[in-house]
């Protein structure tokens, strides 16, 4: 009988803080500037320079620590992590080591299995431990490929050097790749809500490393852990974890041993592979950074940060369920980013119809955004205009079907619902006399269908509706049409 193994996973997440300037100097943090444009003597590590801590970065890290329910240290210490690398100009990284900003936090995550359609089934609420959160500066970037003389040279871009990061280290609380995925999704969402990180994994503003081990289910002792780096998307995280868990179980089942090592995710090969051991044999020789006094947080500052914490995604989702009567799937989906949640809420409030607003936002709007390759931030249709469209349907001025065409035109041109309806002559026909004439014409043009209907084939009602709609170019008020048509058919 084979042994049943359980995975033990912990995540280390690096999030780039959305400050305007770097952690220890005044240089811009803007992504995509020409190589080495965002540098100064301080972040270049020229002889004699000194770091000066960015207060805004501390504030953002503090908000994060509080949102993750960490115990915030009134005094934390910066240390030097010493190692040689060309993209590390000082030869050390300034980071918090033995006295981090926050410890002993928790993140509660709505988790569960997903069906094939992506719906959450068997929903559970799980709470995962946060071991610590600390601040540090980013390193630069070594470029080994893609330059004209890359065969013989490597290049270094130091724009990223000194950009502020928070490192968020979880407890090894995840037992599946799905849990790790849900945690990371939720953590990212939380950072977006706090406005401290843009969560962009492609540009590297959110990075994730994982520690993985396996052990026989029900046992306490942890197996040898392996660190996996280079997990630059949610999908890679899940794939790499699944691969690695499987690899470790196979290894042990075959009588092998797990080696403590760092492995990289190989996107093309769909596998993890060991990093050369030479690169990981580091003794970082941490010691307190003598150029920076201990970081002392005034209690008033902490209190003020607590007060300024925005609605976090869970609270927002729960509010959407109770206030707007949304189901948990819709509430979760609409709160995936703060901008989307904000958009929905504005539309729901302005239209007075949250249900319809939710459908529009998750349906036609999401589809249109996806097709035009835009994010909600770049949405050409303001929420109040979408709300006006919802009201046009609710007032019966246009039909739901017409509204779809109106929506498309509004999304394309940015015009208001009023303007589009007028321009397309899409006003709904509710006038009974006018509709009665059309119905009469349709009935007399289809004697066979009329006879069949009257003989009991009531399914043909839809056929007549369709014909009238065709005649009126879809402008017939469906409710009025239905009543009238039934009357005429019964005559």
């Amino acid at each position: 009988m084979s042994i049943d193994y359980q995975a033990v996973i912990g995540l280390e997440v690096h999030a780039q803080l959305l400050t305007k300037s770097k952690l220890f100097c005044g240089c811009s943090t803007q992504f995509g500037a020409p190589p080495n444009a965002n540098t100064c003597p301080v972040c270049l590590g020229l002889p004699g320079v000194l770091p000066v801590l960015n207060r805004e970065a501390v504030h953002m890290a503090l908000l994060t620590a509080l949102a993750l329910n960490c115990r915030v240290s009134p005094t934390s210490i910066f240390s030097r992590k010493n190692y040689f690398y060309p993209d590390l100009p000082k030869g050390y990284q300034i980071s918090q080591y033995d006295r981090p900003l926050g410890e002993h936090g928790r993140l509660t995550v709505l988790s569960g299995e997903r069906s094939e359609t992506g719906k959450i089934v068997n929903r559970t609420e799980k709470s995962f431990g946060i071991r610590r959160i600390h601040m540090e500066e980013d390193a630069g970037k070594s470029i080994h490929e893609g330059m004209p003389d890359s065969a013989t040279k490597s290049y270094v871009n130091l724009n990223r050097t000194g950009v502020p990061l928070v490192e968020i280290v979880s407890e090894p609380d995840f037992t599946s790749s799905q849990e790790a995925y849900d945690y990371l999704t939720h953590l990212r969402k939380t950072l977006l809500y706090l406005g401290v990180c843009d969560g962009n994994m492609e540009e590297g503003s959110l990075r994730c490393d994982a520690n993985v081990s396996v052990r026989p289910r029900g046992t306490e002792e942890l197996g040898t852990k392996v660190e996996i780096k280079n997990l630059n998307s949610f999908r890679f995280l899940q794939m790499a974890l699944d691969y690695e868990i499987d690899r470790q179980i196979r290894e042990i089942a075959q009588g092998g041993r797990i080696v403590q090592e760092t492995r990289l995710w190989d996107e093309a090969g769909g596998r993890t592979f060991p990093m050369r051991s030479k690169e990981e044999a580091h003794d970082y020789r941490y010691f307190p950074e003598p150029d920076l006094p201990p970081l002392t947080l005034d209690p008033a500052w902490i209190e003020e940060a607590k007060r300024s914490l925005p609605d976090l995604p869970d609270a927002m989702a729960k509010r959407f369920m109770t206030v707007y009567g949304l189901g948990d799937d819709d509430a979760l989906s609409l709160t995936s980013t703060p901008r989307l949640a904000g958009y929905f809420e504005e539309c729901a409030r302005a239209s007075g119809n949250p249900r319809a607003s939710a459908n529009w936002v998750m349906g036609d709007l999401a589809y249109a955004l996806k097709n035009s390759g835009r994010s909600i931030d770049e949405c050409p249709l303001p929420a109040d205009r979408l709300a006006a469209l919802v009201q046009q349907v609710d007032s019966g001025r246009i039909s739901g079907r017409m509204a779809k065409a109106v929506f498309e035109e509004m999304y394309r041109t940015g015009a208001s619902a009023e303007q589009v309806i007028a321009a397309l002559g899409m006003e709904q026909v509710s006038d009974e006399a006018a509709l009665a004439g059309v119905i009469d014409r349709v009935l007399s043009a289809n004697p066979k269908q009329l006879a069949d209907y009257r003989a009991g084939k009531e399914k043909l009602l839809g056929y007549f509706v369709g014909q009238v709609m065709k005649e009126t170019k879809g402008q017939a008020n469906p409710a009025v049409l239905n009543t009238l048509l039934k009357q005429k058919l019964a005559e």
Partner: protein
Amino acid sequence: MNGKTRLWRDSKPVKINDACDIRDSIRSGRISAEEVAAAALKRIEEADPRLGAFVTVQPEQALARAREVDVKVRSGQTGLPLAGIPVAVKDNISTRHLKTTCGSRILQSYVPPFNATAVQALENAGAVVIGKTNCDEFGMGSSTENSAFHVTRNPFDLDRVAGGSSGGSAVAVAAGMAALALGSDTGGSVRQPASFCNVVGIKPTYGRISRYGLVAFASSLDVIGIIASSPRDAALLLSTVAGPDTCDSTSARVPVPDCLDGLDRPVKGLRVGVPREFFDPGLDHEVKNIIDDALRNATVLGCEIEEVSLPHTPYAVADYYIIAPAEASSNLARYDGVRYGYRAPSPRDLADMYFRSRSRGFGAEVKRRIMIGTFALSSGYYEAYYGRAMKVRTLIRQDYEKVFKGVDVLMAPVSPTPAFRIGEKTDDPLAMYLSDIYTVTANLAGIPALSVPCGFTSGGLPVGLQILGSHFEEATLLRLAQNYVNSFPVTAPPPQV
């Protein structure tokens, strides 16, 4: 060398190493800044080939700068407390567009794009930076023999060291090549060469002068210090360059008093402690006698002398030589040949580039300290070395806190011996380290201390008296020193250059 170079105008001499006199003379129009700069440059041309105080001299820039100052002074511009005063700057302090080598081959051609805050303060005050002075590589040494370029010789005996690591700055002032100089003091590097060269050297409180632009050796110990030919001149320069700096998070947010104010006020009743641990058997007999005389002189000034104890002093050198190398091993990691500084030609790979650039770029003493420091911070050794050293440092600081509850200042020797012979200790690093025994504690405790000339040995070598005070008490130290030289001026023997 007092009086060696004189400029004559209205039949009154202006000594190149009397900053206050130069300042007054330029203000009154008796002499121009350009004339002063030219005289200093001429003196350098004459004397420096034998002394080796400078690594880089910038004659054209200095003269141009002096002319600018003259224009400002003539147009009546005020707020230039150092107008036209020629200042030498130790070569580990960054000067914009002027080579800053730190006495190292690895930075042989490095030109900073910015000024150290202290240098900027000099320029703002109208000073004329005349050149960069020689030092032990990255400040690591007590004799300026560890410079990658040349040895700096003692003007009182050319076969002897100038002291170090700020040997070039001390000699520049002592030999009348500059009126004032900036040095740096991590374990005595301003006070000891000042003592060896018969000038005043002050190491201010840690954080009193911004370290921004001072190339780091040991960040928690480094301070920019001042060398001058009198306490008054030192006070003038200190008042100008000290103060909080937003670029240095460790600079003290403490207002700087005008140290010139009340400098001559009597010191009667000042309580002076004499730490018995500083008079150990290693103290040269002749130096001890000179210091004893100085203590008697202090009683003549009205000071109340009493013996005190700083019990942890015997551990100070060992403590210092863990902490300083540990920090240095990290501070010097940036010299990797990647962006600036020396890079070994045609490296095989990255590791080879690091290895050969650093092996060739650094001198033996620097490499020794990097190795010691790397070891002290290593995993498994940290607590036994660095961790324990930090605890001992706290005990040393507490010794001073306790003693300053009972006395205002301390008096002690600066160095156990006068200037030693060139080459005498180069093969014995431990003997060299032990010569820092009386100076390192002030750095470990972060307190201010100065060296003021107090006598000569029978062999004609200068001896300095060390005065130490509690944090931010520089004005008291300078006042006591000024009172001392007013009453007991040292007559220097004839100079050799």
